[in-house]
């Protein structure tokens, strides 16, 4: 067995995250493309085991911030740290669920899921076994030999989920992961995601433009201002008990109250953004 495989705790052992310990620290981060300043002076911490959701108008810089955390983009100013370690590039201990199809089309579902372990030097037999487990976990046992083009949109998302989570990363980043799915598939996958997350309770940063999804899944919802020069304008604790069922929780009175409050904050930004980009 490899070093990495040994350092990964088995699923049955309950992980006890310490919410006081910041897992992601975004400190004074400004992101720019040439002269265009997308986000400015963003400060945001995500505690260990916290499920943070980020909402904001289209084009305000949500993906840009996430890419900075992933090490895909460098901040023009400020720093991003994961578990106290400054992010300087890709290859850190994170999992990233992209909005678009991000599977390697020339690899089968199984080969795709294995990738993270392969790049970390885990042996072939070991990574194959783990990848089979993960495919079963996301409900795709029997599909391991399929290429991405031979899978439906929902199935591809499941493979992506297994691919991002197989290394049991300290931080999970998600960029509108379910936005392309129909509403029923979306509900199913949101529940599955919550169940998977509950096992391990890693820190999560999830971007969404769907406020219901943000509240139903998150421990905390952060609102970003309309771009350019976007920043964090509000933060709401979601004090709904877990485990949750995303379809049922929408009928909860506390959920509706939160929805009204957050929407009051978000609405102005959406209208501003709409007026600017009309």
């Amino acid at each position, binding site marked *: 067995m490899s070093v990495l495989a040994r350092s990964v705790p088995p699923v049955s052992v309950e992980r006890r995250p310490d919410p006081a310990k910041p897992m992601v620290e975004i400190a004074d981060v400004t992101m720019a493309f040439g002269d265009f300043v997308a986000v400015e002076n963003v400060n945001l911490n995500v505690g260990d085991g916290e499920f943070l959701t980020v909402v904001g108008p289209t084009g305000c810089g949500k993906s840009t911030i996430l*890419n900075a955390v*992933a*090490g*895909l983009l460098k901040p023009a100013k400020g720093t991003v740290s994961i578990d106290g370690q400054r992010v300087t590039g*890709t*290859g850190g201990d*994170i*999992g*990233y669920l*992209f909005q*678009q*199809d*991000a*599977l*390697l*089309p*020339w*690899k*089968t579902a199984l080969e795709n899921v294995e*990738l*993270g372990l392969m*790049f*970390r030097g885990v042996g072939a037999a070991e990574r194959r076994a783990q990848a089979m487990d993960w495919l079963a976990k996301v409900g795709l046992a029997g599909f391991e030999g399929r*290429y991405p*083009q*031979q*899978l*439906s949109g929902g199935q591809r998302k499941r493979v992506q989920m297994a*691919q991002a989570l197989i*290394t049991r990363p300290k931080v999970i980043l998600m960029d509108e992961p379910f936005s392309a799915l129909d509403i029923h598939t979306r509900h199913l996958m949101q529940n599955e995601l919550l169940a998977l997350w509950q096992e391990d309770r890693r820190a999560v940063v999830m971007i969404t433009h769907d406020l219901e999804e943000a509240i139903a899944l998150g421990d905390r919802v952060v609102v970003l201002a309309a771009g350019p020069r976007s920043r964090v304008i509000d933060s709401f604790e979601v004090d709904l008990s877990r485990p949750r069922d995303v379809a049922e929780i929408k009928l909860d009175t506390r959920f509706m109250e939160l929805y009204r409050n957050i929407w009051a904050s978000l609405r102005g930004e959406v209208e501003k953004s709409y007026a600017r980009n009309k």
Partner: protein
Amino acid sequence: MHAINDRLIQLALLVLIFGGWQFGVTAGLIDPFFFPAPLDILKQIVAWIINPGFYKHVSITLSETVLGYVIGTALGVGAGVWLGLSRRTARILDPFIKTLNAIPRVVLAPIFVLWLGLGLWSKVALAVTLVFFVTFFNAMQGVREVNPVVLSNARVLGANRSALLRHVYFPAAASWILSSLRTSVGFAVVGAIIGEYLGSSAGLGYLISQAEGNFDAAGVFAGITVLAIFVLIIDSILDVVENRLITWRPKEGERPA
């Protein structure tokens, strides 16, 4: 059923063309000095096939083609991937590449003969200059067209530079490179034949030029026919190779709605 009918129509066409041609020559309507009778061409081909000396010519042309093809493709893929990854180098070298590619390759043949002699390698060199650019431009394009999200995903999953090359860039460029492999087989043959035609002592191009020297039109046509069959065989081998290499491309009807 359709397939069988199509085959029958193809056969009928073949009979019609060559039958008409043969008839035209026997009836004195077509001058056999310019258009020798198909049967004479066939006779010449058969005469070659039963003559062991003929296979020396075939094997020499084949060696030149394969060598030119393999060397040109390897250089083209290497240079194409390199310049596809490094935009700056590509920008700097761009005018040089364009100029080199603008040179009609035929005029290089005498230079290669001067440098490399009348033997095999001057023909290989000519074939390489033709094959290289086709593969080069395709490989470069293939690398540049890599889906940025797939690339980001592989990087986030922990791929280093060599892993990216192996698992992302090469496979992404593979279908582009493979499509160029088909085109460049033809170019490799052209390079070898022109080289032989312009100065050599063996090969199919030499046979054609010999026949031409003797005003033997049947020999020229026979040479052309043999060449066409030669390219068709290489092409069908590539078909098999391509299907083996790119298993991941969706077959028609397999793509979910």
